[in-house]
C-alpha cells in the first residue's frame, strides 16, 4: 500500500490562518492535535459516537474525527482554545466551572463546542433541546446534570451577544 502524497491544506483556526501538509487520510482531529499542536480537542472513539472531538466548522458543530483534514480547505475552524475571552474564561466555560460540569475534563472540550454552537444559533434553547443536542457527547464522570445546568445558565450571556461577532462565524 503506497502512501499517496501529502497535500497542502489552508484553513483558519480560531481566526488564525493555518497551512499544513497532511496525508489525505489524516482526520481533522489528528491534524488539529498533532500537526497544529492544539491538543484541547480530544479523541475518544474515532468513530463518531463519543463527541469528545467536536469542533466548530463554518459555524456548525461537527465531529472532527469524521472529517478529513483535506476537507477543511478554506474552512473556518473553531476549537476550545478559541473560547477564552483574553485570559478570562468565556461565559460557557465559567458556567461549566460554576456548575461543576466537568470532572476528568476529557469530554469537556467537545461539550463546550457543541454547546457554544447551539447557544450561538439558539440562545433560547430549552432544557429538552439542550439535552437533545448534548446527547451526542458522552461523559462518563458527571452524570450530565451539571453540564445541562451550566448550558442553561450560559444562555443569558449568549442572548446578550456572546458567540456573535467572532471572526470565524
Amino acid at each position, binding site marked *: 500500500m503506497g502512501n499517496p502524497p501529502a497535500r497542502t491544506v489552508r484553513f483558519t483556526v480560531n481566526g488564525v490562518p493555518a497551512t499544513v501538509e497532511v496525508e*489525505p487520510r489524516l482526520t481533522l482531529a489528528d491534524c488539529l492535535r498533532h500537526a497544529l499542536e492544539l491538543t484541547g480537542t480530544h479523541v475518544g472513539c*474515532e468513530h*463518531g459516537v463519543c463527541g469528545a472531538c467536536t469542533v466548530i466548522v463554518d459555524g456548525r458543530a461537527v465531529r472532527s474525527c469524521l472529517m478529513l483534514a*483535506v476537507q477543511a480547505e478554506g474552512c473556518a475552524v473553531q476549537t476550545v482554545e478559541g473560547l477564552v475571552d483574553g485570559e478570562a474564561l468565556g461565559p460557557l466555560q465559567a458556567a461549566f466551572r460554576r456548575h461543576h460540569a466537568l470532572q476528568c475534563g476529557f469530554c469537556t472540550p467537545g461539550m463546550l463546542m457543541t454547546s457554544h454552537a447551539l447557544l450561538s444559533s439558539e440562545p433560547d434553547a430549552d432544557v429538552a433541546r439542550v439535552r437533545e443536542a448534548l*446527547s451526542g457527547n458522552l461523559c462518563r464522570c458527571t452524570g450530565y446534570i451539571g453540564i445541562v445546568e451550566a448550558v442553561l445558565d450560559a444562555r443569558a450571556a449568549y442572548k446578550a451577544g456572546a458567540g456573535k461577532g467572532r471572526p470565524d462565524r
Partner: protein
Amino acid sequence: MKLPAFDYAAPATLDEAFELLEQHAGDARPLAGGQSLMPVLAFRLAQPSMLVDIGRIPGLDAITIGGDGVRLGARVRWCDILEHPSLRAAHPLLVEAIGHVAHYPIRNRGTVGGSLAHADPAAEMPGIAYTCEATMVIAGRAGTRTVAARDFFTGPLETVIGPAELLVEVRLPAWPVARRWGFEEFARQRGAFALAAIAAFYDERDGVATGVHLGVIGATGVVQRLPAAESALEGRAVDAAGIAAAVAAARAEVDPPEDAEASSAYRRSLVGTMVERALAAAATRPVAA
C-alpha cells in the same frame, strides 16, 4: 483506528468526478458528509484507494419544493432539512423522520445522498425514500438515469449505483396537505440505531384510509413496506379495530433477524407496536383542511 491509506480528490464538476471514479475502476469511493463512510474506514471495513469528495461540486445541495413534490440534492444535509422554512409543511413525514437521525453534530454534516448510497436498513432516509416511493436520480458519464426506490436498494448496504456513478438527487412525490401520517421510532437511546421504526401515511376519503403506506426501518435486514398491513387498513376507518388489523398483519408478515441486541420475536412485536403508535398519531394529528 487510523484510516487506511487512500488518495483524495475534490473535483469541481461531476464530469471530473466520473472520470476519477472510472480511473480507479471500482476502488474509489465518493465522499460527501462522510458520517457513514468515515467510521467504515476507521474500522478498516473498507480500504478504497481513492476518495472522491463531491463537496465542491456546485448544484448538489438544493432543496426544491414544487408541484411534483420535493427534490433533495445529494449533498443536502440533515440540518438543511430540519432548518428549512417550508419543508415541514411540504413534507412533514420527511422532516419528522430526519429529526431522529443520529445526533446534532452528525446532522450538521450527514447528507441525504450519503445515507441513501450507504443504504443502511436502520437509517431513516432510505426508509422514507422507500416508503414514499421516491425516485433516485443517478448520474454517470453516459448520462442521467432515474430509478424507483423499490429498485434502488438491492440488499443491506447495497444499491444499484454503478462504480462510476453518483446519486445526485432524490425526488419525493407530492404530498397532499391533508395527508395523514405518523412516524414512530424505538431505539435504546436517542440517536442509536433503531430497533424498529415505522413511517406511515394515508389519505382519508369519506372517513376511510386510502393509499396506505407503511414502511419499516431497522427491524428487518432491508428497508421494506408492509403490504399485508397496508391492505388490512386500506378502505377502512383508522380506528381501534382498523389499527389492530394492521398491527396483526404487520407482525405476521415481518421476519426480523435475531442479533445481540434483540430477539426476532421482540422485534416483530415492536414492529406491531410502532405501527399501532404511528397510525394512532396519524389518525389524531390535526392536519390542514
